[in-house]
């Protein structure tokens, strides 16, 4: 199988707003504009620590980190990000930023002197931001010649995931380990990310040594760009025992990205050494069967009660393939009817054996999620 030329792949950028700052309207506007200009933007959200930003930048193997700062403390914050990236040997990851008038021209000079590549002040056009970022970072990253065979830490693993692309993997090098691979799929808005995050919260609390990898997907939109924003709401997954990677579908239909299979094999390998690997598809349609031919051990279909009339349920092909069906958002008024209909639908399946869980993932310590966790760990 051939591979795409990585040099022309979309530039991957991480964006975030610093700790104790919730001003996200500028960064959201920049995210939208960059996507439109063909960037893949991994958005970490607001109120994020240096530690979270650096961890995410490394795991996502982005070319640069963009920080939007509005309420002061930018001199210290940017410097810490630059220094922390250098401290882990990733000073090749650029740092740029922006903000309102709180960042003065004198601050910009100072920030550039300690390694910030660019600061975009209020009134800068989106076109200029996109052009300048391409100028700064295009061609900076070429993983085609990357040949890491051992994975000592997140940093190595992240670079391997960028390098494997759609190549034929060396089966010996990436021999399957003991990791259990669990796939989550379902329509958009079912609450898959929240469910995984709540699952992870309890997992980390209950397994003091457990290590988990999460592979999430978001659709690429126009001009190849895409917003990968799962990290923004998955707060418990921002943890040193969690390796998270966000992939854009880059034109692939069905729920996954072109490099998903390879990434999954690497993450599930003995070399990577995870206990659990969770993979989340994009929001899928009724006909989607994303896990066919994949290394998934347990297939989980996540639904919410508003799937429409009963007949719509019969059309969801995954209903016949899932090992576990989760009906999430059981606090909704329509949940009781949905439970009855889903149970009926499951009972019609040949062979049976499918397990049903009712969850309200947005509730802290939800009983349904706890039961699901036990099932999937079992």
């Amino acid at each position, binding site marked *: 199988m051939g591979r795409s030329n990585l040099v022309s792949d979309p530039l991957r950028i991480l964006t975030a707003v610093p700790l104790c700052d919730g001003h996200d309207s500028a960064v959201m506007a920049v995210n939208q504009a960059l996507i439109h200009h063909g960037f893949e933007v991994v958005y970490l959200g607001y109120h994020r620590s240096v530690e979270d930003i650096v961890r995410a930048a490394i795991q996502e193997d982005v070319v640069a980190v963009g920080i939007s700062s509005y309420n002061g403390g930018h001199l210290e914050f940017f410097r810490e990000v630059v220094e922390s990236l250098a401290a882990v040997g990733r000073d090749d990851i650029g740092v740029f930023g922006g903000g309102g008038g709180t960042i003065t021209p004198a601050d910009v000079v100072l920030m550039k002197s300690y390694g910030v590549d660019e600061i975009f002040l209020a009134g800068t056009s989106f076109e200029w931001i996109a052009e300048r970022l391409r100028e700064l970072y295009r061609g900076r990253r070429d993983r085609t010649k990357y040949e890491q065979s051992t994975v000592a830490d997140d940093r190595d693993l992240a670079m391997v995931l960028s390098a494997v692309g759609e190549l034929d993997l060396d089966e010996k090098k990436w021999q399957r380990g003991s990791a259990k691979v669990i796939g989550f799929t379902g329509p958009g808005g079912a609450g898959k990310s929240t469910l995984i995050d709540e699952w992870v919260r309890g997992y980390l609390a209950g397994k003091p040594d457990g290590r988990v990898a999460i592979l999430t997907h978001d659709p690429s939109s126009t001009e190849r760009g895409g917003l990968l924003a799962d990290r923004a709401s998955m707060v*418990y997954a921002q943890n040193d025992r969690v390796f998270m990677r966000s992939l854009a579908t880059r034109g692939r239909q069905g729920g996954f990205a072109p490099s998903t299979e390879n990434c999954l094999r690497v993450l599930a390998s003995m070399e990577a050494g995870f206990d659990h690997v969770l993979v989340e598809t994009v929001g899928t349609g009724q006909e989607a069967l994303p896990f066919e031919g994949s290394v998934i051990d347990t297939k989980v279909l996540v639904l919410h009660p508003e799937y429409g009339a009963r007949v719509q349920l019969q059309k969801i092909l995954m209903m016949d393939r899932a090992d576990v069906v989760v009906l999430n958002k059981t606090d909704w008024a329509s949940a009781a009817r949905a439970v009855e209909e889903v149970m009926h639908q499951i009972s019609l399946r040949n062979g049976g054996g499918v397990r049903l869980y009712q969850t309200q993932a947005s509730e802290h310590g939800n009983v349904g999620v706890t039961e699901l966790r036990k099932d999937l760990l079992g």
Partner: protein
Amino acid sequence: MKVLNKVVSSVELFNQEVEQRVCEARNDAKVGAGWLQRWGEIQRSIPQVITPTGISLPRLPLPELDEPGLIARYLCGEGLPGEFPFLSSVYPEMYLEPEDGSKPQEEPTRLFAGLGTAEETNARFHLLTKSQQSHRLSTAFDGPTLYGMDSDADGVFGKIGEGGVAVDTVEDMERLFDGFDLSDPQTSVSMTINGPAPTIMAMYVAAAKRRFSSGVEKVLRGTVQADILKEVQGQNEVLFPVAASLRFLLDMMEHSVSHFPKWYPVSISGYHISQAGATPVQQAAYTLSNGFAYAEMMRERGVAVDVFAPRFSFFFDCGVDVEFIALSRVCRKIWAIGMRDVFDGDLRSQRLKMHTQTSGRSLVSAEFKNNLTRTALEMVMAYMNATNSCHSNSADEPFTTPSEEYVKLASHGQSILLEESGLFRHMMNGLNGSPGMKAVERAVEAEILKEFAEIERLGGVLGAMEHRYQRSQIQAASYRYEQQILSGERRVIGLNRYADSSDAELPSVVRVADAVKLKQVERVRAFKLKNKEAAAEALDGLSQVVENGGNVFAQLIETVEVCSLGQITERLQRDVGVFRPMI
């Protein structure tokens, strides 16, 4: 039917009834004669005022109407100042100079302050109020405090005291208001805090109890913002999952309305929704719907409407768009009708009392002195709309915590408008009732009702929030706004029009010295060390109340005696979880 749909129907019904009265007045000679007679009586009852330049004017000018239908429409549909549906104002006289030369009914000027440590902000408060009879202390908190963190937390050092005051403990709260008599009816305190509002409010109550007699709670005056719904929708300072955040807030509101009868335990805020990018209509619709949602939740807790509704206050943004010539008027009308017809509230419950702040977003750093003009224009519109209080932004705010020079200009701007100019001193309704204002009213009201219907369709305020409705609408509006500035469609003088690159003057930036930040770090560490054992016990006591469903706020008043803000936030997050941000 759900609350918002009921409000929509009530407003529509109200408008129909007004028109029925108009028809009656026109078609029934006896009714018509009655309206004419009443109109004459009102006109005769209005006193005259002599201006400094020697002309005689009515204190309340009325439209020139001599036809019974139009009189009926005016009196029923708009109402005289202080009369339902309060389109003109919630009180009859607002900022008019009383005839006997006493204080006006409303003293609306508020200035927001907060910088560095409690001592520095305290000094600023003394400076701002030194020549004023009444002490209105409006407090801004720094980033770590707004997110419920202590000054010694990892990674927050650079933010300590920036943009607001650092408050970690009840001792900081005591220092903050040192030298002010919190039990004096002339003193009122406002605190702009939301996610950790119950903890900060508990510190305020505990500090007041420490400094004054126990029982001081009954006379505390002021407002805590505490509006968690708008945080989820726009401003993003949320610490706990929505359900838990609402529980803590409602615990505080319930406790406050029964124990602190003069306190406003929530300021239902459109300001931040607007700052996040909302259009004026969106600001009004989301804010009012949030208000009705809180009212519904309090009612579900069994609190009587006339107990809680008079303790609600509102907070709106006033920008430069044309909607602002009438936006607040429409808000008062919709709230009054909703509280009367849907919640059965009395006159006090029907009055929407609002604070207005000029728009921070309308200010730009390019040629920043133009911001003085923007703020002045916004103030005029805020007072035209009979706001109960007003904060005017300082021109240097795009860069920095306002410097004393620009704070003074902002403050004096209000005095020039209210005391020096004749616009608001002699007459009520000096600027009301223009055809343009009426046109804006009609358009804005219709759009707000449409938004209500859409929110209801998505399951009410909470359901719509879960669908990210308000957030995505605000973000789309924000994106349009930015695009309009970039394309020049929205003109911003000095930025995309008449920009003069030679005029790059910058104000001096106020930053907090590292030594000051260090002092705060050491202080909170010392507090925690001193109370180490007592804190562990107090936190367990707090967890127990969370677990057994008691009033968390009542417990917090005890907890803050020995625990810091950060300790309390962490414990509550362990008990109820962390908020998962929405994009």
